[in-house]
């Protein structure tokens, strides 16, 4: 009972493991490029939870700062990736990544 009522490091690590695996699953199995991007965001969130967990229980600030930079880079990544997806859609008239198989028009 003690293990369930005292929220410790393992609880957060469990959630982050589940989120990471779900994101991996989305990246592996979905054909739509935008759902793949959503999976990548899930993976980044899982990494962030890990950073903050270890930072909290270690007492240092490095994890907090890194998670902030991860959020910044996630914003930049989402903008550029969506621009690329929109370009793919303009060229191929689809965002199905299994049908995008040539590199020139």
């Amino acid at each position, binding site marked *: 009972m003690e293990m369930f009522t005292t*929220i410790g490091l393992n609880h957060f690590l469990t959630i982050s493991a589940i989120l990471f695996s779900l994101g991996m699953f989305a990246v592996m199995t979905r054909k739509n490029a935008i759902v793949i991007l959503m999976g990548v965001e899930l993976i980044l969130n899982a990494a962030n*939870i890990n950073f903050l967990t270890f930072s*909290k229980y270690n007492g240092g600030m490095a994890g907090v*700062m890194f998670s902030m930079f991860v*959020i910044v880079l996630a*914003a930049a990544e989402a903008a*550029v990736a*969506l621009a690329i997806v*929109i370009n793919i*859609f303009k060229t191929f008239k689809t965002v199905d990544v299994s049908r995008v198989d040539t590199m020139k028009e």
Partner: protein
Amino acid sequence: MNQLTLAIIFYVFAALTVLSAAFVVFSKNIIYSAFSLLFTFFGVAALYVFLSADFIAVTQVVVYVGGILVLLLFGVMFTNTIMQAELKTDVLHVVPGTLLLILMIAGMLYTFYTTGDWMPGEAQLQGSVVQRIGFETMSHFMLPFEMASIVLLVALLGAAFLARFDKAHKNEH
């Protein structure tokens, strides 16, 4: 608040996060996925508050919910004609994917729970960290902070350049 109340609130947010993330991944409709992702981000922000990183939680809500999710929704609407009513996404490699999902969760949990006890540091983070984030940003993390601004500027310009509309039309005529 006593320990039990905190634990119950934690489990509610944990369940919200994990279930909505599962719905993002397993739902066939992209719009449902995008809106379910909203709940995942809010749940993760609540977990950040439990980790005494309140500033990161607010940043998460502002950047992810206000920025990335809106961007993803715009992406969905740009790349699917709404009249078509075909907002479905197909799947491939389902069996290897499910196998990988289960193996990954099992492997990570096995590693976390069997490699002995984690030993927490003596001075854990307590209360708000906003002031300490300010000090760290202006001392140890000065260079990454400035580089992040340049990265954001370049990414903004690059995204605007890539996604502009007149280029495709010029090629057609």
